[in-house]
């Protein structure tokens, strides 16, 4: 007891002495902040200024698409236009920052659209309201009136980049399998769309079953698996001309799960011979092939690291489907997944720091991410059937297919931030599965 009293007395006296010590403080007041808030950053996008009479509607539409892009990330929250105090009537006039501060807009996007001779010019500026400074410099894009959405996406990408410091993903496209009809008679065809589900274009007719399309890094070609010949075979399609061809291979041998190497010259895919499935690599130009795995188990779903030095794939060599990493030239593979359940369809992040995967455990499917060494596994989603993750070009968002339960169940595309937030459906005209996110254009 006496000891306790003595300790208390000492603590009390030291506490009393603390201000005396602080009295002698020299230099600035130092404060450390370790807790912030996780919330969307409020911003404002007033309608862009129409600098020509026929650009009025376009100016509004472009501003709306920019706002939709930014708000759709979940990282930003638009201050509604009804709350705006001041209006932007001229692109060059000074911004009344006090008016935007008053409505708590931290960022402001101003822009102008002009149309002349069938050519549309969009220019914009991004402002940091509370410091009263411009973020970056003004920029403009020019294009045809038909390409206004793409110009709006480019503006949004710039705004996103200037505020977050990371590249955007709005001016990008997604190739996927469009599905129609009941489950037992479902027609599947390749389609490509903007990242937000707009501008859907079909690449195949739907006569043959198609699976797992994969964009090349330049977005010009698509690899996919087609049952056109009766057996699954890997095809490559030129997006510009919509011409496709079968990659060379032995007749009667199934090849599937293709994916481009970062250099675009090599394709890695699976070949089934008998009951054994292994991973092979093919040089597209020469047609030369090389076997990368030789285990008597099923190895498939290969995906290159961004630098092309490694490949992550799934294998059941341990008894259940798990994820392994090996050198791009083959050889010894190291298992990286260690949790319960089955892991499949691994995809290396464009940042290079994470691997996304599908996980099946306890009767449910998850989309998850883990470090490239298998650590820090995090499950982002859970449902009856989630599968086939694909990364946005900036490595920040994952798109995947989700199928609902039952005979009338349909597949659709969803996206989710790698923080697990902002899970939302991507609108497509029909059912959709097997997304593959292309590069930023």
């Amino acid at each position, binding site marked *: 007891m006496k000891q306790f009293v*003595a300790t208390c007395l000492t603590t009390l006296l030291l506490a009393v002495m603390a201000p005396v010590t602080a009295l002698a403080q020299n230099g600035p007041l130092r*404060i450390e*902040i*370790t807790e912030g*808030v996780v919330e969307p950053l409020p911003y404002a996008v007033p309608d862009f200024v129409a600098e020509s009479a026929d650009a009025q509607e376009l100016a509004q539409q472009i501003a709306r698409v920019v706002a939709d892009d930014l708000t759709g990330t979940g990282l930003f929250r638009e201050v509604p236009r009804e709350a705006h105090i001041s209006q932007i009537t001229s692109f060059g006039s000074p911004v009344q920052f006090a008016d935007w501060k008053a409505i708590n807009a931290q960022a402001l996007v101003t822009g102008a659209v002009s149309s002349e001779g069938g050519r549309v010019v969009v220019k914009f500026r991004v402002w940091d309201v*509370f410091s*009263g400074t411009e973020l970056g410099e003004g920029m403009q894009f020019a294009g045809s009136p038909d390409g206004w959405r793409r110009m709006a996406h480019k503006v949004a990408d710039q705004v996103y980049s200037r505020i*977050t*410091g990371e590249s955007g993903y709005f001016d990008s496209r997604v190739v996927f399998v469009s599905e129609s009809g009941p489950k037992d008679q479902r027609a599947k065809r390749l389609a490509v769309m903007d990242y937000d589900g707009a501008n859907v274009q079909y690449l195949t007719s739907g006569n043959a079953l198609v699976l797992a399309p994969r964009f090349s890094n330049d977005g010009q070609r698509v690899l996919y698996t087609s049952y056109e010949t009766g057996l699954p075979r890997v095809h490559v399609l030129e997006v510009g001309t919509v011409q496709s061809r079968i990659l060379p291979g032995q007749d009667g041998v199934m090849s599937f799960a293709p994916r481009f190497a970062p250099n675009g010259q090599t394709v890695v895919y699976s070949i089934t011979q008998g009951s054994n499935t292994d991973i092979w690599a093919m040089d597209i130009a020469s047609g030369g092939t090389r076997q990368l795995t030789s285990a008597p188990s099923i190895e498939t779903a290969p995906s290159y690291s961004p630098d092309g030095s490694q490949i992550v794939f799934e294998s059941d060599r341990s008894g259940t489907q798990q994820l392994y990493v090996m050198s791009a030239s083959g050889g010894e593979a190291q298992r990286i997944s260690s949790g319960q359940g089955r892991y499949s369809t691994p995809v290396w992040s464009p940042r290079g720091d994470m691997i996304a995967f599908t996980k099946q455990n306890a009767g449910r499917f998850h989309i998850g991410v883990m470090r490239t060494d298998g650590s820090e596994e995090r499950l982002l989603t859970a449902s009856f059937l989630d599968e086939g993750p694909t990364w946005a070009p900036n490595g920040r968002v994952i798109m995947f297919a989700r199928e609902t339960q039952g005979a009338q169940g349909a597949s659709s595309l969803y996206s989710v931030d790698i923080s697990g937030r902002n*899970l939302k459906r991507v609108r497509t005209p029909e059912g959709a599965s097997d997304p593959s996110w292309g590069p930023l254009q």
Partner: protein
Amino acid sequence: MHTGHYISGGAHGVLILWALFGGIFGSDPPDVEVAEVSVMSEAEFAAMTAPQPDMSTVEEPAALTPPVEEDAAPETPAQEREPTTPPDPVEPEVAEPDPAPQPDLPEPAPETTEDLTQPPAPAPAPEVEAPDVALRPVPRPAPRVAPEAVPDPAPEADVAPEVQETVQDSDTAETSDAEEQQATAPEAATTEIITEAEEPARAPTASVRPQTRPSRPTPEPEPEPTETAEPAPDAAPQEDVEEDAASAIAGALEEALAEPTEGPTDGPPLTQSETDGFRIAVQDCWVVDVGSQAANVTVTVAFDMDRSGQVVGSTLRMSSASGGDEAATETAFQAARRAILRCQGDGYNLPPEKFDQWKSVEMTFNPESMRIR
């Protein structure tokens, strides 16, 4: 010469014979005391134990005696298992009805039972025996997604649409008309979306039995002789503590007073609450994008302030940063700058008389505890 040997041999012989035929190694089991245990209903038990006995009347623990009255307290099996344990000194806890059996706490039978409205009654053992296998309850995850799971609020907490801090009286805070409000708990959230229909059965099939209460140390049989000896071993540590305290106080005094009182000493120093108020005001505006590369950057921002508590914008500068590339560092700096500027309003609430203490500030923004791992 061998007389001693003869005597010893004879005595041992007698002892061995007595041991063999004297019944020392008899196999008769020792008598076991049997006590009548009556099963009571919970209501009866509560009624019987409601008035607490006045334990002050129990001065000396008495030896164990078999129950002789019908209304005597039911004895615990512990008394049967450990009849030789010395009686425990009387403490108030002993009289409290405890649902768990306490095998190590034999209940002393009070000698003067007439003063007790109810005798101390331990809980009847058969009613509280724990099952061998217990299912651990699994809290259902909330259908919200957050970077860090927010635990379920306490039952008495209200879940408000917005999380708010407790408003407390502060010496430095300006008087406001705002009514005192209680802090609300953030809505429970988890890191993944789990629907009820898809919730797995994660209950363990078995759980460890609850640990029994640690045994009370056996009291000294004769505390009196040790009382005089106790102060001796205590004396040395007490002196040490006092010496430590004295030296710590002297050191603090010396440290405080030895420093020359130079620099910005115009005015008293900021109190901890004033500093905390400043820190909280800024952190409420610090928006962290937990999934970005900037969330890996710790940045220190330096700035000056005027007497009204407003930041001199032109002095805002990044004094140091670590943990990311140039773009991520710049983004982290911009976020910190926005936080400082956005929440100042008409000026941070800092005491003007201590202006010299806060006219120059270095603020470090460390998102380590927030970022996704």
